[in-house]
């Protein structure tokens, strides 16, 4: 049985924990809104890019001169997995979910006799993967200095990827991130970056065949494909950022509630033991008086 003083200290400490988690939840909520706005703002560009590339790619893909980025290297022996996670913890199962998906994929590929390479973005995923996949880690992108995720950050990653691709370091590249559905639901997702796949746009882009190109179609495609990859990385990172804040918000909400419950329980325990102490003191006094 802990003493009254111990209980009191305990209650105080849980109370201050609750204050911290509450504050973190509110910060996450504010950041989530900003992250969502950023994701929203990036959408028109990504959609346009996808539509244009889709149309261009549809026209060129069948030709033997199609760029390697689109047609692939012809093999699928070496896989590069880009695992995008957060730089900070305390966000529930956010990082574990991505790592789990990536790990499962890596295992499947290894079982098929393929070579796996892993590039981590964000510190937390690296820490988890280093435990059992450290042989496959080939690089790491540090975003901890980045306050607001910009297109240039994504471009840097994309340039790195393309550089590796052009040096024949891998055949297929897949990115893992959490797709933001809502505050309580983030879905770990994998998306193939290279060889690039785009969905042809519908609607007003349907008449793409009549477009005139300057310079010619293939030159434009060669120019746009790296940008397409960068855009996809950017989209994934933005989704990830929003998901991270969402996950942190709900994790902190839970923590706040748990702390509240714990304070309640401890307070009851505290009151009971105080009452018990009073009662036993009274009994002592009464029985002492009766004995006289």
């Amino acid at each position: 049985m802990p003493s009254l003083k111990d209980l009191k200290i305990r209650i105080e400490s849980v109370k201050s924990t609750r204050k911290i988690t509450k504050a973190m939840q509110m910060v996450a909520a504010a950041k989530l809104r900003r992250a969502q706005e950023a994701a929203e703002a990036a959408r028109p560009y990504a959609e346009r890019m996808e539509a244009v590339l889709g149309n261009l790619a549809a026209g060129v893909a069948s030709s033997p001169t199609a760029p390697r980025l689109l047609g692939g290297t012809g093999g699928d022996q070496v896989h590069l997995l880009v695992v995008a996670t957060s730089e900070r913890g305390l966000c529930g199962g956010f990082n574990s979910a991505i790592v789990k998906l990536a790990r499962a994929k890596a295992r499947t590929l290894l079982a098929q006799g393929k070579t796996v390479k892993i590039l981590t973005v964000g510190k937390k995923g690296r820490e988890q993967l280093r435990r059992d996949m450290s042989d496959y880690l080939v690089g790491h992108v540090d975003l901890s200095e980045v306050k607001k995720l910009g297109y240039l950050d994504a471009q840097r990653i994309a340039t790195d990827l393309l550089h590796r691709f052009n040096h024949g370091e891998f055949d297929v590249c897949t990115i893992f991130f959490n797709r933001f559905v809502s505050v309580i639901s983030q879905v770990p997702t994998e998306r193939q970056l290279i060889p690039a796949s785009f969905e042809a746009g519908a609607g007003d882009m349907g008449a793409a065949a009549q477009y005139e190109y300057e310079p010619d179609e293939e030159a434009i495609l060669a120019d746009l494909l790296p940008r397409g990859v960068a855009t996809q990385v950017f989209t994934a990172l933005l989704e990830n950022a929003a998901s991270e804040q969402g996950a942190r918000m709900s994790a902190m909400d839970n923590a706040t509630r748990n702390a509240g419950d714990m304070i309640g329980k401890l307070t009851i325990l505290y009151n009971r033991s105080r009452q018990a102490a009073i009662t036993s003191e009274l009994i002592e006094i009464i029985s002492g008086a009766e004995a006289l």
Partner: protein
Amino acid sequence: MATTMHFDLVSPERKVVSVEASMVQIPGADGDLTAMPNHAPFLTTLRPGVVKVTAAGQVSEYVVTGGFAEVSPTATSILAEQAMPREEVTADLLDQLQKSAEAALAETSGDEEKGAADTRLRDIAQLKRTLRL
């Protein structure tokens, strides 16, 4: 016949401008071009340069660092790597661009890539002169 068309200038991070324009001057990779309503469908890559938009008699200017433009009879959209109003462009930003272009030139091998990097560098220098920065 329509006298205006829809014009969008978007960068990966945000939509910079979206207006009904009567004329848009675009710094295409193979030379400047001006798009007006009912222009034939057209797609071009951009070089670093100035986009001039005429909307409701007002001319506004934006600086783009690259990307591509898509012209159709009823709409023109520019998807720029970076885009901002001309007033917001600073000498620092251009210097940075120039540095990264120089670095790219130093890194590349092969005549074709070298040529492309060299062209980009010259375009940036030209842009600098145009903006007098």
